């Protein structure tokens, strides 16, 4: 079963016009749009049972707690976790990765230890490890990528050493769109006793993820890229691993008992959920998972593959002078197409596209080292999701020709 043609009716924002043109939203890798089923779930929480969780004994507090924990169970099932307790809610994948670096890394990583990343990581999977490495005197190493934006695994045996404690890899590159062979990397890491962290920001929304089959020890994801509200996301790890970790943030809810000079910790996952959580957001995330499960992740992936293949072909056939697409062919690519046009800066491209109602990302997409290696300051990124249609790709291709024309006349 494919994605129903009526899907766009579920997304109120897609009905509007921008600058007099229909909104063409091609920036889902930044954040996805939200279906009314998710918006309504959040509104229902605030209108019917807004209360703090795990505290009140009154009815609406119990309902809030039950719905919050039900959302956790939905996410756990969605990602293939063994049980809901393996899912820690965070604000986003950035917080999830920081949690691992802080709560696991500070205890286990010492001077001379190595942390292996890749050259295509998002800043959120670079900077937390840089902070940790500086503090602990550890060494950062990086798996390089080739001119197609694919990881070069030939030297992996040399990059993973007896000192390697963590290998952290982006599952799907937010710039190249490359789907990385995480399972293969995980096998090599585990053979040397290293743990594997997977940045799932661009995979959880777009394909069936089985965290255990993937070979991950930690898997971080972001809710707002998968139809859920802003400020939602989480971390998966096995219960035993979460249990032996130190807490991340201290405060209410994460404790078992507190004295003036010490405290003991709550059970997982609540040990990592200090303070009042974004309950409405989590419930919205649960509704987003319901929505995606109804579509079927296989259908989601197939739809995006079709759109992405169409985009690659359409951009090629449009013969836009000076256009270069970054990243691999369709076989190794998720729903992301980044490109540059010789002689027209990405910001100028994005500005012209905006007047056509088209939303694309222009800049370094939080992958500055990747762009630096390519000798680029910035690129343009079009990214797709369940609601993207081929007509939008046609509009993009025509607008790019117009952009090229505007700047050629000037030259």
């Amino acid at each position, binding site marked *: 079963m494919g994605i129903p043609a009526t899907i766009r009716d579920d997304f109120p924002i897609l009905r509007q016009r921008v600058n007099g043109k229909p909104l063409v939203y091609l920036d889902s890798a930044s954040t996805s749009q939200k279906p009314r089923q998710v918006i309504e779930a959040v509104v229902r929480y605030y209108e019917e049972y807004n209360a703090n969780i795990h505290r009140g004994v009154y009815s609406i507090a119990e309902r809030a707690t039950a719905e919050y924990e039900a959302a956790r169970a939905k996410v756990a099932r969605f990602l293939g976790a063994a049980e809901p307790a393996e899912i820690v809610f965070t604000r986003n994948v950035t917080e999830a990765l920081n949690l691992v670096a802080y709560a696991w890394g500070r205890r286990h990583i010492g001077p001379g230890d190595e942390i292996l990343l890749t050259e295509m990581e998002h800043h959120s999977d670079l900077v937390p490890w840089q902070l940790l490495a500086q503090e602990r005197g550890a060494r950062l190493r990086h798996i390089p990528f080739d001119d197609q934006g694919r990881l070069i695994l030939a030297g992996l045996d040399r990059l993973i050493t007896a000192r390697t404690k963590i290998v952290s890899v982006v599952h799907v590159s937010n710039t190249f769109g490359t789907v990385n062979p995480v399972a293969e990397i995980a096998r090599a890491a585990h053979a040397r006793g290293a743990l594997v962290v997977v940045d799932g920001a661009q995979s959880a929304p777009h394909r069936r993820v089985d965290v255990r089959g993937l070979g991950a020890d930690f898997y971080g994801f972001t809710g707002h890229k998968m139809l859920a509200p802003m400020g939602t996301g989480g971390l998966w790890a096995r219960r035993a691993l979460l249990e032996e970790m130190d807490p991340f943030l201290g405060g209410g809810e994460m404790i078992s008992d507190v004295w003036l000079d010490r405290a003991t910790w709550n059970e997982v996952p609540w040990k990592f959920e200090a303070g009042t959580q974004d309950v409405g957001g989590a419930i919205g995330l649960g509704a987003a998972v319901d929505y995606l499960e109804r579509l079927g992740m296989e259908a989601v992936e197939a739809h995006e593959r079709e759109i992405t293949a169409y985009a690659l072909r359409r951009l090629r056939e449009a013969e836009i002078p000076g256009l270069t697409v970054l990243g691999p062919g369709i076989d190794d690519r998720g729903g992301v197409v980044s490109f540059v046009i010789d002689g027209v800066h990405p*910001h*100028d491209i994005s500005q012209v596209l905006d*007047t056509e109602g088209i939303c694309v990302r*222009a800049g370094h997409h939080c992958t*500055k080292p990747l762009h630096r290696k390519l000798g680029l*300051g*910035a690129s343009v990124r079009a990214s797709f999701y369940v609601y993207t249609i081929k007509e939008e790709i046609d509009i993009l291709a025509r607008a790019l020709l117009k952009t090229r024309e505007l*700047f050629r006349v*000037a030259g």
Partner: protein
Amino acid sequence: MSLDDLYRDVILDHYSHPRNKGTVEGATVTREGANPLCGDEIRLSLVVRDGVVQDVRFDGKGCSISQASASMMTERIKGRGVQEAGRLIAAFKAMMRGEAAGEEMGDLEALQGVRKFPVRVKCATLGWLTLEGALEEAAR
């Protein structure tokens, strides 16, 4: 919002044919400016002697607005007194805030249209803020 407000002919002309591009040999002061959000970069090299900007060149990469603004700026301040350049910087910043410039802006007025696109104002001012830093350095 019309694109013509932003991409005026004079701006596109400076973008495709930048004036004073490169590096001044024997520069007395050099200065780099960057807009970390979008990655635009400007490098200025100047010969400042006897209170006068004797020579100035810019290099860098970035969008049409940042590069054209820098190009127009070098054209305007080359051979002018440091104090006059300082007044022009203040006038340009005022213009980009939507205030009265208080100076004859000439071609630079073309950049006024950028104000309608708030995200791009930083592109237009990048070269000017870099120049401001360079002149402060030269005065030390």
